[in-house]
């Protein structure tokens, strides 16, 4: 998309992603941030040729952060916001504390879900064919906001996934894989991975970080139904280098 050379990430994800009803999970770790994949998707969904809508639920950064990054990539979020193509829900300070008992905790996330559903309803009732994508940055902070109740978090996610069936929404979520490395916390990431169609993992290189290779991406595409009817999951692995205005993807050793 950015250059004539085929973008490896786009290729690995497949073209079906824009059609709706797909769930993409991005996983990263402390050493390598996977946030750039979210920015990539944001830019892609808000492409001027399409009329897709993005509902962005930000737990990690304020609007100004994303705005500045996307502006450098040639996508003005403020304008998209005005044109009702971009909905930004700032959840930086969302707290669902335990103070008022169990109910209150649920209320915070329930209210958030209500907001999302309302937005989806409004946009899907408008004319024209458009896909609504819900992006969450990042899931692990929902758990913190829910004060450690992973059940509430999972409930919230399942609620959101129901929108997929009803309105054909797509999902792109970011999560941190290394948090869930111990056995008793593994369940959560397994659940989100199970529900995903595409899993993108950002990892550092085993040899450490270098200035021209920032890490590697492993893309597992589960739902790639081929023309011949067979459904096969594909794994792709390539390196990336993040730049201000785009990201270079290349196979190991192919960069000169």
């Amino acid at each position: 998309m950015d250059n004539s050379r085929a973008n490896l990430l786009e290729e690995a994800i497949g073209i079906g992603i824009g059609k709706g009803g797909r769930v993409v999970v991005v996983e990263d770790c402390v050493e390598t941030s996977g946030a750039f994949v979210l920015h990539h998707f944001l830019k892609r969904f808000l492409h001027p040729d399409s009329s897709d809508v993005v509902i962005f639920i930000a737990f990690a950064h304020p609007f100004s952060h994303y705005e500045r990054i996307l502006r450098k990539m040639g996508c003005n979020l403020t304008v998209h916001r005005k044109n009702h193509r971009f909905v930004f829900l700032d959840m930086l300070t969302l707290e669902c504390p335990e103070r008022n008992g169990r109910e209150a905790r649920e209320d915070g996330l329930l209210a958030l879900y209500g907001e999302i559903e309302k937005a989806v309803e409004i946009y899907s009732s408008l004319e024209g064919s458009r896909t609504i994508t819900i992006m969450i940055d990042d899931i692990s902070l929902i758990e913190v906001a829910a004060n450690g109740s992973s059940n509430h978090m999972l409930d919230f996610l399942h609620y959101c996934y129901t929108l997929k069936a009803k309105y054909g929404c797509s999902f792109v979520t970011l999560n941190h894989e290394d948090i869930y490395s111990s056995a008793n916390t593994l369940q959560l990431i397994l659940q989100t991975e199970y529900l995903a169609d595409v899993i993108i993992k950002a990892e550092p290189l085993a040899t450490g970080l270098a200035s021209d290779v920032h890490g590697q991406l492993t893309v597992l595409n589960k739902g790639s139904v081929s023309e011949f009817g067979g459904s096969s999951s594909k794994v792709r692995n390539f390196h990336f280098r993040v730049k201000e205005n785009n990201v270079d993807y290349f196979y190991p050793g192919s960069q000169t």
Partner: protein
Amino acid sequence: MASSRPRGSSFSRNISSAATSQVPGVKLGPNGTSFLSSGISDLDQILGGGFTLGSLVMIMEDPEAPHHMLLLRNFMSQGLIHKQPLLYASPEKDPRGFLGTLPSPMASKEEKSHERPAEQDANLRIAWQYKKYFGEQNSEVQRGGKAEYCNDFDLRKPLERHYYSGQRVDCISLRDSSNLAPLLERCSTFSAQISKSDGNITCAGRIAIQSLCSPQCDFSNKEWDMLSFIRSLKGMVRSSGAVAVISFPPSLVSPTFLKRWQHLADTLISVKAIPDEDKELAKLLTGYQDMLGLLSIHKVARINTQVPAILEATTFSMKLRKRRALVLECLNQAPVDGSSGSSYGTSGSCSGSSKTGNLDF
């Protein structure tokens, strides 16, 4: 990114140090961010200018040595000298007493007279240690403006009382209450005072929290509470013109939570003491005797940008220059001992450099 300033070497980070904003002690950085000095000029340089305003800095302590205190002290002192409001929280009974141990800035005259003889020796410097000396040159460049962005601190001389007797210094003991609510409240009132008005910072503030999960605090076993406190603090700091530095002992946090804490940190630093008599390490590194400890940088704040910061080196040695000023140096591997038989190392470092003198490139 282009700066007219002559650079030390083609490998050094390109820091736009010329840009200084109206607010004292705040330097403008790339992507609409601003920097606060950490109080250690070397650390500022490594981080590309200092701590980013609105970021959360976390320092992983060494369980055996109080090296994190050195970082906290310099950070707090620097803020007090710039007359920035300060909030300090610690598990001690009397946190205000800690302010008496803060280091005082060195007089710049005295500093320069110390600096001179070193400059004259420049011709005698040995090539493999060249990296050590870039720091000195660059710190000289920074000195020049009237109000210094980063002072050099004399760790042996306590800060004069009038700096911290003002009203803008707030201290709180983590032992006072059984939960984090009071601390959070203090932090929110603190950051509300210095909040940005339409993106313009009128005043920068510093929050220093020492040993957040130390066992003296009643809440040290409430991991979710601490986590949500850190998250709330991060949110507050981000929307205000402040930098929060939290130090914590990583061994007391369970592994999954440690990862969560690390993800929440914008800038992540760890300090480590080095054992006194580690002969193997002493053989490997030059200047081992003068080293206080090692400082590693795991993460650098990336606000308003998606490009990761790739540092030249992530581990640095902490040393005391003239037993008073804290400096950070790249680790230098000791040259291979000539008598040990491997001639490659010696020819590479000594004769190699003399040869290039003859051949003019």
